[in-house]
């Protein structure tokens, strides 16, 4: 057990079951806005943070000796989004580190052999193919790094390689347009995030060791990630590699540093010469990027370069952003729930007046896009029935896609 039993029990004892972690700050807007996707979708107390803590206690104290459908569902149908933790610490000042506790809980379940078959299958796929989707082809087969010893290394991640390659394409195009030499790893393995988040800690060790080794040998000084899940895993679960680890939006915002951005601000994205898109966009904070890594401003700054004043804030944002629904192994195991969650976010973006919902994470993009497409289909059906609905289907992008679309070069 990563954390000691007593330490975990002590944290659990601090929960007063107030359930304030299930809603976003009520004041000053005085609007009731749910924050915990799993509780909101499933309803039973077991799906809210305080209920999960009791389940953990019951397991540690030996009261729960068998797996059950309810156990697996309540423990694994949680996106580990951390919204509960952020809200709780704000109102109570107690640091319960809930997502870490929930990861520990999953680790404990896996040690007892109580895991989901779909998660075990992912581990199998990774073992065979070194990627979470079991894909055998390589991303852009034959594509080469511009420079094998380049100081910048782009760690693509499984989802951008195999499910939303437009994000990886966009990132490479940005490097090219900016004349930045980069390398990508021929032998990039899954970062291990999905295994670690689903409690399969042992299986992740080999991946961590491999990636650490190849990155150390690459000569790179900066590793750029478009996937916050990979970045978070590198920061949290990898040994010190002696390289700078940055998210794409930090990298782009950093180009303006010391060069006087558009508003003279550091980390402003002001180093980019970008044509404005003329489209109202809302920014969705990915959980790993925002709540886990505290990166809230850079994506907004870069997005502002592309969309100017047309960036809309949704009601739940930053620390209290509503999760897209795909993290923590949820997308693979509980797709209906994941899509419902993303659908709620799409609605929120529309209510904020956005035509496009922009994230900075391939995992978010994939799920939000599926939800938006589903919603558009449903909309079409109801329209056929003569019931007009307002607005068009929501477009979904990653920040780097919009940057690559409008990028004209570096600001002189």
């Amino acid at each position, binding site marked *: 057990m990563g954390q000691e039993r007593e330490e975990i029990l*002590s944290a659990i004892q601090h929960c*007063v079951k*107030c359930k304030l972690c299930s809603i976003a700050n009520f*004041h000053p807007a*005085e609007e009731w806005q749910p924050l915990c996707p799993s509780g909101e979708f499933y309803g039973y107390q*077991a799906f809210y943070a305080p209920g999960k803590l009791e389940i953990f*206690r019951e397991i540690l104290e030996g009261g729960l000796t068998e797996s059950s459908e309810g156990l697996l569902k*309540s423990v694994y149908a949680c996106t580990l989004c951390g919204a509960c933790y952020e809200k709780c610490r704000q109102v109570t000042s107690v640091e319960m580190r809930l997502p870490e506790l929930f990861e520990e809980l999953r680790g404990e379940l896996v040690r007892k052999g109580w895991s989901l078959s779909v998660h075990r299958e992912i581990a199998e796929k990774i073992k065979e193919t070194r990627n979470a989707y079991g894909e055998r082809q390589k991303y852009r087969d034959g594509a080469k790094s511009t420079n094998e010893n380049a100081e910048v290394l782009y760690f693509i991640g499984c989802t951008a390689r195999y499910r939303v390659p437009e994000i990886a394409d966009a990132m490479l195009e940005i490097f090219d347009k900016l004349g930045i030499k980069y390398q990508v790893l021929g032998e990039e393995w899954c970062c291990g995030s999905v295994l670690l988040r689903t409690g399969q800690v042992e299986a992740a060790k080999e991946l961590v060791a491999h990636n650490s080794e190849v990155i150390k040998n690459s000569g790179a000084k900066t590793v750029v990630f478009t996937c916050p899940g990979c970045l978070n895993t590198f920061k949290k679960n990898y040994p010190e590699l002696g390289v700078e680890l940055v998210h794409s939006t930090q990298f782009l915002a950093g180009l303006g540093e010391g060069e006087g951005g558009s508003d003279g601000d550091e980390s402003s994205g002001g180093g980019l010469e970008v044509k404005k898109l003329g489209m109202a966009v809302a920014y969705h904070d990915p959980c790993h990027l925002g709540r886990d890594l505290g990166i809230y401003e850079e994506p907004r700054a870069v997005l502002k370069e592309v969309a100017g004043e047309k960036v809309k804030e949704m009601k739940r944002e930053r620390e209290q952003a509503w999760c897209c629904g795909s993290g923590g192994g949820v997308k693979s195991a509980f797709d209906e729930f994941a899509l419902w969650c993303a659908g709620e976010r799409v609605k929120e973006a529309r209510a904020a007046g956005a035509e496009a919902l922009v994230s900075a994470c391939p995992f978010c993009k994939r799920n939000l896009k599926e939800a938006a497409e589903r919603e558009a289909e449903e909309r079409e059906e109801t329209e056929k029935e003569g019931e007009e609905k307002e607005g068009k289907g929501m477009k979904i992008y990653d920040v780097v896609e919009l940057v690559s679309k409008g990028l004209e070069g570096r600001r002189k």
Partner: protein
Amino acid sequence: MNFLKLVQGVVGEENATSDRAICASYSRDQHWHFVPAKNPAFVVRPGDKEEVREVLVLANREKVPVVPYSTGINVRGLAIPVHEGSVLLDLSRMNRILEVNPEMKTATVEPGVTFGMLLEETRKHKLRPAFPDAPLTVSVLVNYYLRGIYQTSAADGHDHTLSYEMILPNGETLKTGSRSLSEMPYFRYGVGPDFTGVFSAHPGTCGVVTELTAKLYRLYDNRKVYFVGFDEVGAATKVIYNLMNDELAASIRLVDNQSWLKGICGTFDFPYEELPKFVLCVLVEGVDGIFEAKAKLVQEYLADSADSADSADSGGTGGRVLEFPAEFARTFEEESLGGAEKSCMVFGLQGRGNYHCIGLYGPLTLAAEYYALHEKTALEVGIPQDHVHFYIDPIYSFHGQLCYFELDVFYDGSEPGAGEKLRNYNAKQFQRLLDLGIYGWFRPYAGIIEPTVERIGHLAEVWKKFLRVLDPNEIMNRGKLL
């Protein structure tokens, strides 16, 4: 057919379970040092009152104990099963606001409606419910049915329930107040005795309340906040008396500088220790004209009090008007008249995280004695003095100088021995307070009710018989009285 299958037939398979993990998630609340964890055998989530009725009838027939649960946040172990094989009736799906009636200044709600949800609707009409200083995630219906305490908006007085509808174990519906006579549920005293009162505030419940009509209060645009510091409890009581006697303030709370004040001000990051030991927080509101007049009078009372502090090189014990950052007043206003989120959640101080309190009603005249007793008993049982906190909330219209007092301990529940100290504290303190004299307890929960019924004579017998009439099979969450 087994019980689970029967209730699944009523509420649908996905809304009833005997899954051990799901049941375990309902096994404990913050009062676990006093009410041990216990799993219900089933959790059932009805979607409407007809489903509630059918489940109750089944449970009554099969003699399965029933624990209604609306939001489960009561912090007194009230929704933790006592008996093996209980069914926990999770009513949170029933969360419709059935009516907000601005003309009548009332709202009718189902059990799952929270204070936050209700305010979101009522504020559209410049109205609000009376708020407890409880997280705004708690059920309005249950809070009123249990007869909570509404210190955030003390001017509203004490009783906010007009009428309700309750389903008994035999499936019969009881309607109280004018609800029993007409479609107008807006008057509490419909026929004969005050049934609305008689069926509520038990240590447990007689049936399941499925809808309740409550009073709403006006939201005013004019508001002003004052904070005044005192070194002693006794010194503050004179000012409190004046403010209450002239009915000047919407909210009046005396708190010590290390506890609730931090939530009222909305930040943990302020040198509270440099303030006087007790701080009186006062909020004035009203329509134009009346508001200005009230604010003027309040200022005069506070200035008088401050003068007596000046003269007191002297040993004078008057107050000191405190200048705080503007956002402190804003948080106090928001949380007093818009639902508590921070102001009730401050016990995480120094990583402690748990909260124990004895809440009681008594006269303002005994304020200093209650506090002295609190400090004394805590010291005797080994509770550190910096864990000891205090709260006074006077209640309009102030007959009997009615106040709510809270004797608080903020502690670390995971610390070995914490539970034992608190149990020792309770054992002594309940008796001492009863000896000193109180009007009543905040709520009749486990531990507090036992020493109390011993003192109420024949009333205890009548009370028990009364509950048996409503629930002859004793299946309801009778809790701790019988």
